[in-house]
């Protein structure tokens, strides 16, 4: 019986060695170790053995059983590994093939730039004001201290609906509306569409976008204006950006200024982009003229404030190096999808 068992072990070894796959190994296990397997069958005959022989044979039988199990396990591990490897190899793909895209929408670049600017001012405690595109002459010019014979009021500069109604030429009328409708402290930006009677070409559009800023409170100074705009410029164009404040003239601010930023292409060295000067003009600003405050019902002896305005289309074009303003309003989706 012992030799029978040892013979079985030899058979099992041979068969395991020759087993081609996991399935064959399982069959081998069942054949030798299963309920009706050969080892089991032999063990069933143990009852016919003598009391002396039984433990001896039992021991051998268990050893044979353990050996077969061990062998099976070892080979099974190998086979499994090989099979997984084969599966992975068979399922290999060309990862450079195109992806399955879901459509993604893109914001218009002017609004992408505007969003960035809004975030900066929201973070500085500004709210966002809005106003109508069709405005009264009063809000657009009169209340803003524009001289009655100022050329910008003419039909060749401004689109009129009636004698006292026009398409706003600037976002500044929103200043007037905001100051009339709320009490200081006021801190708002006001983006929007503006219109001027310009023929369409690479640098002119009869419709364009501006962003206005307005702060009114007690003790507002030019230093506050400078600090606010310097921080804005650094956040929009990078922390290395320098600002230059130059005196200028606007009817609705006094003192007035324009702000140049160090060229963000060359860092101020002078290049083709900045016309060699190292500086790029980005906005107009100033302390709100007392006449304007008074017109809006705010006492200029108690309060003062500052205002600034910038051309969004120009900033968008600079930011993305767009050389023709018409591109912005053609809305070719191949253009919009770039932003």
């Amino acid at each position, binding site marked *: 019986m012992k030799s029978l068992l040892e013979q079985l072990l030899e058979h099992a070894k041979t068969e395991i060695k020759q087993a081609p796959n996991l399935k064959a190994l399982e069959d081998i296990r069942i054949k030798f170790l299963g309920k009706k397997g050969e080892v089991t069958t032999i063990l069933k005959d143990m009852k016919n053995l003598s009391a002396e022989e039984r433990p001896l044979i039992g021991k051998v039988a268990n050893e044979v059983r353990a050996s077969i199990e061990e062998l099976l396990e070892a080979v099974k591990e190998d086979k499994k590994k090989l099979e997984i490897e084969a599966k992975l190899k068979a399922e290999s793909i060309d990862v450079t093939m195109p992806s399955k895209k879901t*459509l993604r929408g893109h914001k218009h670049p002017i609004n992408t730039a505007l969003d960035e600017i809004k975030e900066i001012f929201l973070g500085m405690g500004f709210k966002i004001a809005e106003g109508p595109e069709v405005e009264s002459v009063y809000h657009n010019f009169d209340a803003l201290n524009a001289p009655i014979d100022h050329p910008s009021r003419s039909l060749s500069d401004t689109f009129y609906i009636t004698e006292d109604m026009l398409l706003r030429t600037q976002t500044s009328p929103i200043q007037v509306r905001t100051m009339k409708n709320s009490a200081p402290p006021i801190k708002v930006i006001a983006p929007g569409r503006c219109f001027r*009677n310009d023929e369409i070409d690479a640098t002119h559009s009869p419709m364009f976008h501006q962003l206005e800023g307005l702060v009114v409170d007690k003790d507002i100074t030019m230093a*506050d204006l*400078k600090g606010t705009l310097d921080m804005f410029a650094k956040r929009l164009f990078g922390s290395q950006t320098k600002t230059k404040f130059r*005196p200028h003239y606007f009817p609705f601010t006094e*003192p007035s200024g324009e702000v140049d930023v160090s060229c963000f292409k060359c860092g101020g060295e002078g290049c083709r982009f900045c016309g060699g000067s190292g500086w790029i003009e980005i906005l107009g600003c100033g302390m709100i003229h007392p006449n304007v405050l008074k017109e809006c019902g705010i006492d200029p002896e108690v309060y003062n404030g500052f205002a600034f305005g910038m051309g969004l289309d120009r900033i968008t074009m600079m930011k993305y190096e767009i050389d023709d303003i018409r591109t*912005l309003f053609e*809305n070719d989706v191949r253009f919009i999808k770039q932003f």
Partner: protein
Amino acid sequence: MRVPVKWLKEYVNIDDIAEKELVEKLVLTGSNNEGSHVVGEGLENIIVGKITKIVQHPNADKLCICMVDVGDDVLQIVTGATNISENDFIPVAVHGATIAGGIKIKKGKLRGEVSNGMLCSLEEMGFDKASIPKEFDDGIFILDKPYPLGMDILEALDLKDTVIEFEITPNRSDCLSMIGMARETAASFERALTLPSGKIDTQVDDVNEYASVSIEAPDLCPRYVAKVVKEIKIEKSPIWLQMRLMNAGMRPINNIVDITNYVMLEYGQPIHAFDLDTVKDHKIIVKRAENGEKFTTLDDKERELTSEMLVIADAERTIGIAGVMGGENTEISKATQNILIEVASFDKSSIRKTSKDLGLRTEASSRYEKGVSTGLPMIVVNRVCELIETLGAGTVVGGAIDVYPTPVEPILIPYRVEKISKVIGETLTLEEIIKYLDLLGIKTLKKEGQQFAEVPYYRLDLTKEIDLVEEVARIYGYDKIGMTLPKTDTWGARTNAQLIEEQAKLELLSSGIDEILTYSFVSKKDLDKINLSENSILRKQVELINPLGEEYSVMRTSLIPNVLDVLARNSNRKVNQARIFEIGSVFLPKEVPVVNLPIEKKMLTIGMYGESEDFFTLKGACENILDGLGICDYYFEKEENHPTFHTGRCANIIWGTHVIGTIGELHPHVQENYDLQVRGYLADLDFNMIIQMANADHKFVAIPKYPAIERDIAILVKDEITSLQIEKIVVSNGGNLLESVKMFDMYKGKQIPAGYKSVAYELIFRAEDRTLVDEDVNAIFATILKALENKLEAQLR
């Protein structure tokens, strides 16, 4: 304003200041730089020569051969010029020279004859064609007198100069003058200013014996100053004067005209000279023109005047349009012997209107329009006469006529040191403020405990304390003012409506829709293109008085045409798919004709075309937006009467009793009108209403704990039965256990009788508190089936 630096140095000593520093400083005090150029830059080896002999070229009719003495050599040069004669001194570009535009000159042969260089015109020396004297236009520049032969022309004529272009803001008309810029320079660098003396050494007789002046319209002419010069000798101006005018951008003409132009550039005050002998009775009358009168101006054009226009007349007729242009009838000519020099102040609005109505804008009118001080005329007339005397152009008659009925008193502006410091944000002392104002020529004084600034006559822009703040700030230096942040304690936030718009855009973008921006003004014809009826309410539009063209003549009442234009443009450019949206205002008049500001309503319009697009992709996008904004309980209802859309493929989106939008496929006519090659899809939503409906409140719903039972149902129904009808019946008979119902198939065709369709739905049943068994659902399912049979004549398949 063009500022030749050499000229500037006449008035202020800045020899030690580099031009770059000059520009930078002036920019910081308020005169922005618009570029500069160097006269004579790049010119090399252009030297003085003298033509000793001219002979005809043997092989060319239009060329001649000149022998040119250049000091150490005599060069043979072939030229096509016709304005030269023997013994002329001329600029010669010799072999190896560089002329304007970087062109190199080399010796060579012209039609077989050796040419060792080129005789130069002013244009070839880099001057603007528009400012070159007429006599040298298209010809060689003949020098005014002998110069050392062979000398570099730049040196001989002292030509090198930098011309800086400054932007002058509209409030600073005083800076449209050399002296104005010199004042700015002097103040910026804290230097002294030297002004011309205006001193005339010899004067004869009394002007009142020669002429008289009366003002009949003092409202339009506050001051008129006149002086007379006799024994006039009209000739060319000296070269230095011509060069200055050319560098400033003006064409030299003759000594008298050049002097008036020179002094105008110097002071910013227009000046006119009449041929006194042509002025009838030597009488000058300033008055309004006769309505409809005809008058021929210096430019030889006859113009019709109106009674609103101010003219200068003599005893019989008009001799000039005040402040705009003189008349042909009193023009200075070679024969002129006596002149009357007019230096007057005119009302700026009147000059602007006259100039505009006549379509005639001149150096003089554009200066008067911006404002010229009444303090200038007497100073200026003396300066003109000083130069006439210096150049020996005539004999100045003594005295001046000065009609100045109401002299302007200097303005005193009270100011406060604390106010100035407070606005600027820097602590300034009284002494500092006085110093800065003084640098600008503004005197200060104290009266009854109050500080005052006396505005100099030339500063028309200073009227209020705040104007002084700016003066102090810019001379103190904007760059020196500190940087702080406002102490205002406000918080930044978007309004609710702004947040909803942002959210809507996010939903749109995540549905793969690109944002566009289009013009707010459109063509009236756009509404025809979208098939709207004649009496559509949208045809009531806000019209522009002065549009750029019909294309942009009315404010839009719908975004649909704009979106369709963009779809068509993309399609025509062979872009095979587009999904676009715009959120923008439409303009609805409250009344026609418009009196009050129109209603501006925000619309959201979506457009799509492309192979994978159909009604349902658009519907899905709309649902994404509405769902994303927390809007529920809306539904789609078929719309068959909207003229823009396909009658069978259009729906209104209904919320309560409101139509919040319309979506559908384009009507074939509209598609054709826009030349769209493929089917297009549009959704037009009232965004103001969406803002009202949006709901940001989200409440948690528990994840189901127990499994569901799914049942499919397939029925045959008449074609006209809508999915919405079926769903409503299923839902109303589904009881509490019905969780959802969703169509998953619709079939028409073979095996289905005509006029019918097969539809299949998946129904999901679930209980919150236990696992359902089939028995729970069987009865409900049967009820649903029965209801469908009864109400819709549905047959189970």
